[in-house]
């Protein structure tokens, strides 16, 4: 088996899938010769030509809208939005067009397409490059939203996303692109969309997290589990929409305590939905309030203060303590 960084795994997967299925087209800003600003599509244009790896003008609505059009006419586009914060420009095409196409065509058309985008904090970017906006799409029926936390998941989830017959948002935590190497099988495998991954089993509290905060949570738990004298279960959600209710509820019914960690701002975010679900389906198992460690309810801030803004170790430890001692 080879080891890869997450960005290598994404690049490898795109290549493999494009080799397998020539209906797959990549399009986006600077993805051709330049190979994408993070090199996710490095080398693909040289391999597959300018017809299949398309540098687009700067127009996000057009990137997604064009992909919708392609998807309905026999192609399987993989669109890149250079940074996820620019998705606002394409909001109608993502949420009102791609997501609703199956519905509005009475089931006669579908939009098998993927929208990839890097996002996430801690990388000292200019504004609107780091925002975690998965919550907006969780609230938008017709989309699937997935987010890998490591290279292995990136390959399995991206493969599944590309082969899915519905539009999938594939969100790539920038901070993890080159942070770790993992073993990644070269052969074909899929990670099922809609299924969470119980990263670590535990008895006393469930931490639900995804994407960029997964390694952080793992590290904190590793370092603090003993000191807290508690056994922690960690769920890597992998798919934000549809949420894997079963895994979450089963776990919380066992542990009776839950902590949700995400980078998106707190209010109205995905953590709210998870907490509400737990309330709905496991209320009487709870021995402590479900807490959320998240980005604060401000715009994503400037680099000077982002480490304090993000759900960092201090904040996770603090909330874990609260949940456990309630």
């Amino acid at each position, binding site marked *: 088996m080879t080891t890869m960084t997450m960005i290598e795994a994404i690049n490898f997967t795109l290549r493999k899938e494009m080799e397998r299925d020539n209906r797959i087209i990549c399009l986006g800003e600077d993805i051709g010769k330049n190979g994408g600003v993070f090199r996710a599509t490095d080398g693909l244009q040289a391999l597959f030509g300018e017809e299949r790896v398309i540098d687009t003008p700067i127009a996000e609505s057009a990137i997604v*809208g064009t992909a919708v059009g392609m998807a309905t006419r026999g*192609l399987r586009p993989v669109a890149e939005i250079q940074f996820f914060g620019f998705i606002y420009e394409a909001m109608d095409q993502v949420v009102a067009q791609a997501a609703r196409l199956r519905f509005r065509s009475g089931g006669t058309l579908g939009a098998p397409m993927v929208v990839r985008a890097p996002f996430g904090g801690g990388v000292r970017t200019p504004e609107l490059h780091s925002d975690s906006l998965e919550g907006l799409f969780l609230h938008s029926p017709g989309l699937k939203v997935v987010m890998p936390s490591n290279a292995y998941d990136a390959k399995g989830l991206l493969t599944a996303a590309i082969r*899915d017959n*519905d539009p999938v948002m594939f969100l790539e935590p920038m901070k993890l692109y080159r942070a770790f190497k993992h073993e990644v099988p070269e052969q074909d495998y899929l990670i099922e969309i809609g299924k969470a991954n119980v990263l670590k089993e535990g008895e006393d509290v469930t931490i639900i997290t995804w994407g960029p905060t997964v390694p952080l949570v793992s590290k904190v738990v590793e370092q603090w589990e003993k000191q807290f004298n508690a056994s922690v279960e960690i769920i890597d959600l992998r798919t934000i929409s549809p949420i894997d209710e079963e895994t979450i509820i089963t776990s919380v019914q066992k542990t009776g305590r839950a902590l949700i960690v995400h980078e998106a701002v707190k209010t109205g975010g995905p953590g709210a939905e998870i907490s509400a679900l737990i309330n709905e389906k496991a209320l009487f198992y709870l021995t402590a309030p479900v807490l959320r460690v998240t980005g604060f309810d401000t715009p994503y801030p400037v680099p000077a203060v982002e480490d304090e803004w993000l759900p960092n170790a201090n904040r996770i430890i603090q909330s874990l303590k609260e949940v456990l001692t309630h």
Partner: protein
Amino acid sequence: MWIEPNETTVEKVQYLDENGKLLGERPDVSDDDLLSLYKWMVQARTFDKRALKLQRQGRIGTYAPMIGQEAAQVGSAFALEKQDWIYPSYRDLSASFVHGFPMKNFFLYTMGHLKGTDAEGANVFPVQIIIGAQCLHAVGGGWAGKINNENSVSVAYIGDGGTSEGDFHEALNFAGVYKLPVVFFVQNNQWAISVPIAKQTASKTIAQKAAAYGIAGIQVDGNDALAVYLTMKQALERARNGSPVLVEAVTYRQGPHTTSDDPTKYRENSELAEWLAKDPVKRMKAFIVEKGIWNEELDQQEFELAEQKVSEAFELALNTPKSNAKEIFDLVYEQKTIQLTEQQNSIRTERVLK
């Protein structure tokens, strides 16, 4: 040096004058095609009148009449090949009918049925409500057609008001850069609800907007079915050869924006009167009558036939079982999520209390 506003000269293509008299040379169109063009226009007008009546009777929902725009819609769609695709807005019914969209399903659409956008195999995209969005779908569709060597052109139908949207711009720009087989067919019917074209853009014509994208543009008398048809033929040929084009059909919305709209709030009756004199159906009829291939009797028969087809379509729609709330959960994803299954199961069939 300064490029002054509106210095481009734009000459409108016209074949028939307002009375249906041929201007200049006889174009190369068979009598059969002339008659078909006219018959489709009769069908369009008949459908429109009936739909208005049904709406007033509360039997169908809000309706956006196309009266006055029959030449633009029929003329353009009649020029298409079967493998071409159209991407219509809410008003482009007759273009859709000409290209094979079943009238019955449009009735279903106005009745709020889930199958109201089903083209039953015709290359007609679901009508677009979001102004401008369809232009991008046409670009993507055209692109796919090009990659798949379908020899197929994609036609985006949009109104004058729609040209103000960002999506319109992005679509034309993409098509220009990648030389896509796309025709942008703008029906400039002078109004976007209550906003006249002069408040929509300072550009003297819509055709000249092509200059911004390095593509060809043309303005055509949109009430002259012959001119629209022949221009669209050329437009399609250019597009089929990889040169996207922008066509502006100058026409007029004779009716209200939709059945919820009251145009007397914002426009003068005199303007309507002027345009009624240029009515596209009347004009085409005069031409074929003058040509000796049509007469009053045939005309009456044709209108009756058209009525009959509309009645049949409406009957079929009426007899289609109403959409059921349970169905919607199956239309969100290819495979239903557990959440949707749970919600579907929770739906009771009893009458809704309000």
